[in-house]
């Protein structure tokens, strides 16, 4: 079976762990639980008539005190760059992380995930900034780890890019 290492990257509290748990176990918890270090999970997807085992590295979030170590990305085939649509600054963190990955690991496939789309009334992201990033080759997908909307599709989109 094809195996692919996928890293979850993003600012703290954007929903990286919730996306993994929703994807792997179809569960959502309202309680926020900070990740330290990394937790590894696995799930098999059927993509382009092939079984792909996704080895999911759920990395701790980046904040002003804690930077993500790029050594975690060794051997990664791709990554999901998670953004909290209700926190504009999480997009800035994502932009910085993406540049950092490209500098240290090189160009590997990624999908930018706009999470918490169920909280649309609190949405803070500016469409023009997203369009500018799309023009640079970013692919966005809206998700809600709470409702499950777009979650499997985001992993599937990344898997298709990695094959």
């Amino acid at each position, binding site marked *: 079976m094809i*195996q692919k290492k996928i890293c979850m990257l993003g600012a703290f509290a954007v929903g990286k762990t919730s996306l993994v748990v929703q994807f792997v176990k179809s569960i959502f918890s309202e309680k926020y639980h900070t990740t330290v270090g*990394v937790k590894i999970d696995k799930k098999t997807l059927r993509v382009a008539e092939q079984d792909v085992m996704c*080895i999911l590295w759920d990395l701790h979030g980046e904040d002003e005190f804690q930077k993500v170590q790029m050594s975690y990305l060794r051997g990664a085939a791709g990554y999901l760059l998670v953004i909290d649509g209700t926190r504009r600054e999480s997009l800035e963190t994502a932009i910085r992380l993406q540049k950092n990955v490209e500098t240290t690991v090189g160009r590997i496939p990624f999908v930018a995930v706009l999470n918490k789309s169920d909280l649309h009334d609190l949405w803070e992201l500016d469409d023009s900034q997203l369009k500018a990033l799309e023009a640079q080759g970013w692919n966005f997908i809206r998700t809600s780890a709470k409702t499950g909307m777009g979650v499997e599709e985001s992993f599937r989109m990344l898997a298709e890019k990695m094959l």
Partner: protein
Amino acid sequence: MTALPPSISEYVLHLTMEQQLPAFFVLDQEGRLCEWGGRPERYGISPLNQEPDAELFPFLHGIVPLGDEPVFFPCVETAPNVFADIHVFHREGKNWVLLLDVSADALRQQQMQQRLNEIALQRKPGN
């Protein structure tokens, strides 16, 4: 750097064995598990009669066979509430994997980080 006297290096070794509960695995160039020891059960790993695949060593995917450069993955949760610093390095034609327990530090950091992040989220405009 001055060499450490045996009494110090023995003390450090004893401390590491007692507190960091090392486990090690040796893989040959083809990635087959040929030796293991220490405390693998601490990390939820039961290597007996198993091929070293993604089930057994998910953290090795994409990095073995290893080049000259060692790889370090800090603070990997290998079992519920068990965290290890994972060192992978090449010696004598083999890949060596060393796990050292850092659970106590990780759980302390988790509690502190949780509080800091909750405060940061409350400071967010509109909250």
